């Protein structure tokens, strides 16, 4: 299942993240792609807020992973630096854990990720406008429909 949609503002990104937040379950795997500054972390902040996390969610780039405890934990990763290295075993248990796992720059570890996942690519159109390319595999096919209208 593949869908495209245009987001015109930060507010619309928030609304979109809220829709995604309604579909999460333990073990949820969401992969994000998009250039520097595309809005991957911004989206994840909104998603975490919609999951009820009240702690400040900020960029995981430096530590590669930040864990936020909640009804469902949010495991927020940025694997930009694992380019050419691949999956890190210190991270693996969180990818397969029972929280919600969001991975920025997921392509760097794609070989070690499960088939079944939700992939959202964010393309910068201009300052505030983004094109989202949403693809779901396995049980995530249904979810694409739910979040893209």
């Amino acid at each position, binding site marked *: 299942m593949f869908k495209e949609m245009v987001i015109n503002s930060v507010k619309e990104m928030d609304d979109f993240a809220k829709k995604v937040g309604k579909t999460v379950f333990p073990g949820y795997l969401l992969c994000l792609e998009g*250039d*520097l*500054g595309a809005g991957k*972390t*911004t989206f994840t*902040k909104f998603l975490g807020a919609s999951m009820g996390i009240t*702690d*400040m969610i*900020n*960029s995981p*780039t*430096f*530590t*590669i*992973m*930040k*864990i*936020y405890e909640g009804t469902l934990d949010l495991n927020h990763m940025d694997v930009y*630096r*694992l*380019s*050419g*290295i691949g999956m*890190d*075993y*210190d*991270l693996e248990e969180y990818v397969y854990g029972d929280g919600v796992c969001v991975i920025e720059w997921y392509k760097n570890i794609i070989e070690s990720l499960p088939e079944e996942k939700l992939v959202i690519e964010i393309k910068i159109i201009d*300052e505030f406008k983004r094109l989202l390319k949403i693809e779901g595999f396995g049980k995530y096919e249904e979810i694409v429909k739910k979040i893209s209208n």
Partner: protein
Amino acid sequence: MIILSVESSCDETSVSIIRDGINVLSNIVLSQIDIHKAYGGVVPEIASREHIKGITMVFEKALNIANIKKDEIDLVAVTKGPGLIGSLLIGVNAAKAFAFSNDIDIVGVHHIAGHIYANALTKDLVFPLICLVVSGGHTELILMKEHFDFRKLGETMDDAVGEAYDKVARTVGLGYPGGPLVDELAFTGEPNYKMPDISLGKTYNFSFSGIKSHVINLVHNIKQRNEEINIPDLCASFQETVSEVLVTKSIRAIEEYDAKMFMIAGGVAANKGLRKKIDERINNVEVIVPEFKYCTDNAAMIGVAGYYQYLKTKKTDNMRLNGSSRIDLV
């Protein structure tokens, strides 16, 4: 009181022995920086392995150089977070094993408390004080009214300062870690590029993702017009805006809380542009910057923080002490 302290939250394996929170008897730091350089940054799994390889040797060396016996140690202090989870666990488990087998109490210490207390090795702290914590992973403005009493006035809502520097460097192709290079180039350029307002009004929070996006768009647009980017000017413009917001909010906090002392802590404390601006603008309170050897991660600072933490709380942890990738200072 003699404390043995352990730090392993990122890419330095370090053990220190310190008396009364001030006399550093030994401070051994085994850096992995050369190993990670090839990967453009710290790789968690490799860091964990290197910590395992080095930790026993670092413990032994710290004990030997301090020339004390294990039964003279009163307390073990260890970084419990934040940091890389696998790396933290090695320090925490080594510290627990050492404490357990020698029947010594243990306390888990917050990494940022350590960076703040690195300054206490330079000068006695005077309260109230404001501390600006700036590093690759942190940007926080902290108020302390007395020893080991932290109040977070604000923090970054997205990228940390050091991270924003590295990302700007990446955008203009300066390589990794580009932050120090941006700082250097900034001194050879003029702040001619217009940067967005990142002051966010009255809050003490910071946001650097907006200026990051702005730089990315700017570079993209210049390239589309087939024009040359003036990299030194871009660095100067970025540095001016970023250091301005850091210093302006610090000054506002100093005034609002009537601070007697201002200090910076963390890796970006070495940034020359920031230091220059602090020199120019903050002169009505005492300013301390950490000694260079205590700017980067080290166990001595954890020993100092652990000392004041214990004095204040009289609390110790037990063998259930665990590492955590993300914990709040307050």
